């Protein structure tokens, strides 16, 4: 069997009238395609909706998910904060300085509990810079006689 094509018949068939679409065909098709695209999961094309995301059309479900995630994250932060689960103590320099000074007087160096996070220009007299701030321990030169800033 060969794939023969009856060319003269084909020409005649192509000459037959083919009606155009009726009025409204393309707008209707476009609307349906747009609706179909919006319905597709993960579609980048959203339905035009300007109202609340909580009462929007079906396609706003991903927006609802996003809002839900933000809400859950906010709730976690609030709960953790209210339980006082902070791994560090927050106090003013004036609070911490006497304790550190006592420890320093006893052991000649700050104790483990006296790891303080100072800005370099806030190091009180007699304390050492350690770790990332200074790289190596070295005496911290007092800037002046002013008291440590209260934070």
């Amino acid at each position: 069997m060969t794939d023969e094509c009856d060319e003269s018949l084909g020409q005649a068939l192509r000459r037959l009238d083919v009606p155009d679409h009726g009025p409204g065909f393309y707008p209707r098709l476009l609307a349906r395609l747009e609706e179909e695209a919006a319905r597709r999961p993960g579609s980048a094309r959203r339905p035009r909706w300007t109202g609340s995301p909580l009462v929007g059309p079906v396609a706003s479900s991903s927006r609802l998910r996003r809002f839900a995630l933000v809400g859950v994250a906010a709730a976690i932060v609030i709960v953790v904060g209210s339980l006082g689960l902070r791994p560090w103590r927050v106090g003013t320099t004036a609070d911490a300085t006497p304790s550190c000074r006592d420890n320093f007087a006893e052991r000649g160096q700050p104790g483990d509990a006296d790891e303080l996070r100072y800005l370099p220009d806030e190091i009180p007299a007699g304390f050492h810079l350690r770790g990332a701030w200074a790289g190596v321990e070295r005496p911290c030169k007092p800037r002046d006689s002013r008291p440590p800033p209260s934070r």
Partner: protein
Amino acid sequence: MLRVLVGLGWLQATALPKAGEVDQLVLTRARRGDYVAFTQIVDHYDHRMRGLAFRLLGDRDRMDDVLQEAYVKAFRSMPRFKGDSALGTWLYRIVYNACIDDLRSRKPTVAFDERLDVADSRPDPADVAIGRQDLAAALDTLPPDQKAAVLLVDAYGLDYAEAADALDVATGTIGSRLNRARSCLRTLLGPER
């Protein structure tokens, strides 16, 4: 008759159109759900799809309704189009099946297969169309499967394998349908052919 028409120059401007494929980027975008890209695909193939649907259904309103459904269905199925067949062939299949579904649904009292049998066994279509000498009328006498085969192969230039793919039949079936359709049309259109 066709030979006469060709001789008169009536058919001069109807060289077989080559249905080039749409741009790959457009196809990719359409598969990702870009309906604007899909409308470019519709533009590209719409004339042929209209021709097939109108010849099968015989009515413009029905053609429009069926093509609406077929295009939406095609767009919905785009992500599953793997390119195993040409995009045009794939669209022909969707449109043809939509037309057949429409024909079935509008004649619920007679099963479609029975109707095909009736169409094949009824008196020579030449008796129906005799005197009209009209290709469209002659074409209307053919059963849908033969009509689709002759349109896809002779009018739209699909090879047998593509037409078989579009109509979801064996390649040999396309050959036999074409033979019957052409023979019938030649009979109807007069002794010149």
